[in-house]
């Protein structure tokens, strides 16, 4: 296989991994005010992702770095072209990351309410915007001969992209609900299951529309298989959540996200950022790529280090596999000052 193909797949894997992992972090964040009726419930929810969210976010950092190295033109056109989308994603990720660490370090209810708002906004906004980013990549944008985006911010707010955003937002919320169903106990887990059902059903409509649109406008044979798989996995998740099988429901949404993301990258291939104007201005895995030399070195690094990363991240999930029960959240935090 050609190195450019390998790296297209690698970038797809990194972003897919990011969506699957950060997806439930975002979902938990969005559901905070909905499911967390009182402070200890909200803390239990946050603590289900406490040990892992930071490691999950590094999937994005790695995807970004790998894109820069393997497809410099893709990285340059995408980030400069989708400027304001990324600016808002960054703002969301900034306030969310700080909120995790700082929320529990204040003493007043007002302090915690404000950080909760940051967690909700910092989860919902990037979730929606990532959907818009991916949809716009698949759809293509106007590019000039230097591969620079010639449209405006408003050009990115098209129906397909907005539908993509809505799909990702709801899918991540569902993913988070199933995760909480799995990772909490008692009443909180039961309510997570219930809301997971409603969210799963609500996701089905835009997700189906978005995937069918993708398939009709940009799809191919392989993406069709993946689209069908994603839809089946979503339905299976609903059924499993209904049966109270939180773990399997969570695995099903993880699969939904992975298959949907794979379908989108499959529909994109061999382009990486198509041009809606002159097709010659479009970016492909060939003309956007770095040299064989760079791709070769990157391949070795990925072959050696990615398995190690998977091992120790997997170990983290094993260490913190125990459900978080509200009863185990300390009543009062240790007072300071």
């Amino acid at each position: 296989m050609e190195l450019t193909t390998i790296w297209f797949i690698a970038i797809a894997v990194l972003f897919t991994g990011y969506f699957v992992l950060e997806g439930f972090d975002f979902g938990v964040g969005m559901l905070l005010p909905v499911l967390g009726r009182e402070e200890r419930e909200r803390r239990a929810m946050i603590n289900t992702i406490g040990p892992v969210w930071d490691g999950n976010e590094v999937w994005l950092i790695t995807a970004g770095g790998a894109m820069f190295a393997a497809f410099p033109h893709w990285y340059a056109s995408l980030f400069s072209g989708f400027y304001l989308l990324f600016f808002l994603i960054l703002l969301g990720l900034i306030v969310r990351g700080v909120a995790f660490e700082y929320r529990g370090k204040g003493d007043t209810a007002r302090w915690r309410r404000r950080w909760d708002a940051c967690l909700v906004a910092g989860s919902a906004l990037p979730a929606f915007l990532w959907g818009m980013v991916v949809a716009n990549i698949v759809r293509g944008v106007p590019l000039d001969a230097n591969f620079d985006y010639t449209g405006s911010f408003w050009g990115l707010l098209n129906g397909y992209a907005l539908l993509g955003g809505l799909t990702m937002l709801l899918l991540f919320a569902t993913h988070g609900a199933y995760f909480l169903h799995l990772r909490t106990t008692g009443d909180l887990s039961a309510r997570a299951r219930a809301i997971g059902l409603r969210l799963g059903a609500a996701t089905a409509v835009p997700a189906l529309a978005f995937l069918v649109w993708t398939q009709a406008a940009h799809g191919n044979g392989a993406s069709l298989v993946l689209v069908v798989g994603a839809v089946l996995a979503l339905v299976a998740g609903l059924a499993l959540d209904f049966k109270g099988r939180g773990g399997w429901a969570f695995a099903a949404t993880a699969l939904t996200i992975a298959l949907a993301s794979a379908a989108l990258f499959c529909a994109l291939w061999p382009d990486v950022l198509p041009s809606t104007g002159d097709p010659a201005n479009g970016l492909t895995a060939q003309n956007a790529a770095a040299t064989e030399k760079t791709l070769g070195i990157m391949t070795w690094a990925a072959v050696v280090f990615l398995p190690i990363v998977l091992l120790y991240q997997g170990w983290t999930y094993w260490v913190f596999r125990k459900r978080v029960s509200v009863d185990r959240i300390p009543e009062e935090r240790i007072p300071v000052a």
Partner: protein
Amino acid sequence: MDVLDLARIQFGVTTVYHFLFVPVTIGLSLVVAILQTMWRSTGKTVYLRATKFWGKLFLINIAMGVVTGIVQEFQFGMNWSAYSRFVGDVFGAPLAFEALVAFFLESTFIGIWIFGWDRLRPGLHLACIWLVAFGTVASAYFILAANAFMQNPVGYQLNETAGRAELTDFGAVLTNPVALAAFPHTVFASWLTAGVVVVAVSGYHFMHRRDLDVHRPAMRLGVLTTLIGGLGLVLSGDSLGKVMTATQPMKMAAAEALYQTTYSAPFSVLTIGSLDGRHGTPIIEIPGLLSFLATGSFSGRVEGINDLNAQYNDLFGPGDYIPYIPLTYWTFRAMIGFGLLAMAMAVIVWWSTRRGRLPAHRLFWPVVMWMALTPFLANSSGWIFTEMGRQPWVVFSLYQTSEAVSPRVGAATVLTSLIGFTLVYLILAVIALKLFFKYAKAGPPAEETALASSSPSDDPDKPMAFAY
């Protein structure tokens, strides 16, 4: 103001801000790892209490470092797309390595360390913080290797048709002499920074005579870290200066505002007169020192700005290749001066607290606490000098900053993000500082509290040791 100015301001603001937290993260992770190791090896609970106390302050800091780091990786593409296209083949790989090799390690094991106190065997838990400490240092190495390519491009060839620099030797990129000199310099600066922070915070508790059993060993460790860092800075700074003279002579000339090529060039500690040193009257001048810094000999020849500019005009075509001298001249002095001030403070604190002594003067500790600013001023000055001294180049001798900016991004867009980031950063700075002071003042946890949550437990109903 045009897009170029706005993008440069944004890079300056976000980078200097990010680098307020980075050295503290690198240095404090080591301090916490050492304290926890001392606890494990001696079994003395004062070290455990110190570990918990400094661990908390470390986490307040690292959260800021992590979130502001993402902006760094993305803004090359957002504001500097032409630059990204030009260097991506060479410059992207170290960034990808940083994420894959170092940042994954750091971010995953910090989570395990925070939440793992009562889940992991103590030895394994201790290993986690050491892995974090190692990860931060490895991160620094890859980032500095990327930056070194901008100072002294190596291991590439220019592809004229593709219009970009292409990688020929990754080993050369990773062993760039600038990276090899800047890496120890940055790590020592981080140790100095963390050391001074530890001294200042411990000093607060010395002033109030509280928990001295916990703060005295931390204070000793802080002084030691500061002094080792400081001595390392002097030595590594010396080698960095010589590498810089060899690779970027203009930057060395700009550091001293030396216009004419000179043998036995002096170093002016302070100058009055015009800011750019053109008509300056040095107040304190050390003969031959600049020659020594640049060449290793007090009589060595240091090329002047005017001669270099003439050479560059011949080499690169007509233009102005002189960086903004007032800034390079003063930031170079600020970097060295504030660093020396921090070292002097550590020596004085060490002398005044030796063998259980407590300084009596009521201004002693407040002054020590204010001195906590010095490493931050030195670090910021150092980076501003390094980056501004390279101008007008973004990649020295290859690519100018004015060509590097995203051609199709409008000024309004950049201004929007500049205002947005600056506002959010300002608000977060206030909050982070308030929290840091609050927990610094609160002091270490009591012995029972610290012990209760520091070992594995089989009791399923026991409250979680650490929860967000």
